């Protein structure tokens, strides 16, 4: 299939927002989305962006049933390992269902890897839901390993009231 992978621009935020919602629906959590298209524009495309994006685009004659040419995306940002140094974190990776099986996901991930390596990163990290078998298989085929299983690392979160109490020094 004919497609291109390129850096996301401000104008892509409308489609990124659409696809974020599609991915959240796939993960069965679309009611948790608080971020708007405007937030994405501000947080990703101002002087100090909190994330970077790449887009997979197909030519007009291959557009989706609903008329979209932007058919996949990845959001990533740079992080830091206190043991190994610079790292890249892939927050989202998504290809619209009708465009899967054509190596677009692989190409998006390859691009994030290239950008990460160019920035001096020695590892790429991301999280996957334990029931998402097709994604788990895809990632394992790319040479990824499960840090949660192998090292017993659990992802923890402190938010909302708990975060506020913590900030005030309450126990």
């Amino acid at each position, binding site marked *: 299939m004919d497609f291109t992978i390129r850096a996301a621009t401000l104008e892509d935020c409308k489609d990124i927002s659409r696809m974020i919602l599609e991915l*959240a629906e796939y993960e069965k959590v679309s009611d948790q989305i608080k971020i708007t298209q405007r937030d994405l524009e501000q947080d990703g495309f101002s002087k100090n962006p909190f994330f970077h994006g790449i887009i997979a685009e197909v030519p007009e004659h291959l557009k989706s049933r609903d008329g979209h040419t932007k058919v996949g995306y990845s959001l990533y940002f740079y992080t830091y390992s206190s043991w190994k140094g610079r790292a890249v974190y892939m927050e989202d990776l998504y290809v619209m269902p009708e465009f899967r099986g054509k190596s677009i996901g692989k190409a998006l991930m390859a691009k994030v890897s290239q950008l990460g390596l160019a920035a001096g990163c020695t590892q790429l990290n991301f999280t996957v*839901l334990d029931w998402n078998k097709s994604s788990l298989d895809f990632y394992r085929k790319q040479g990824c390993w499960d840090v949660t299983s192998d090292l017993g690392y659990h992802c923890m*979160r402190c938010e909302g009231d708990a975060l506020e109490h913590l900030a*005030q020094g309450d126990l």
Partner: protein
Amino acid sequence: MANFNLRKAEPKDVPDILRLIKELAKYEEMEDQVILTEKDLLEDGFGDHPFYHCVVADVAAEHQKVEGYSVIGFAMYYFTYDPWIGKLLYLEDFYVMREYRGFGIGSEILKTLSDTAMKNRCSSMHFIVAESNKASIDFYKRRGAFDLSLQEGWRLFRIDKENLQKMSAEE
């Protein structure tokens, strides 16, 4: 012992930060995994686009329990992004030297970080903990943190440099 001071790390703190990183890694039985150098920490934390931020806890000379060290605790963090809820604060490392525990230094560091998270309009603070580290898990759960891996099924995956290079070379 009441007299300790929490402050933003400076370039001169880099040797102490690396020392504490190694002490924490040793506690996690992973000391041989630390390949980061003082040069990396300096370049990556104190250049134009820092990959991480650090707060350190130091004690005045008359309160030093361990010969020669005034920096006795630290936290390393950076900002990440969740496309559903926006900015997050990610806590990479958090450690207080054994001789200085039980005085509220850890709690104070966490309070400062939570405050930083709130001031930067972060929705939550994320971090990982090894499931075998019961003391730390209890410490965090007492403060309202919850285990995303257990409760939502998120698994942390990683690709190391060799496989990153293979992936980035694929067309």
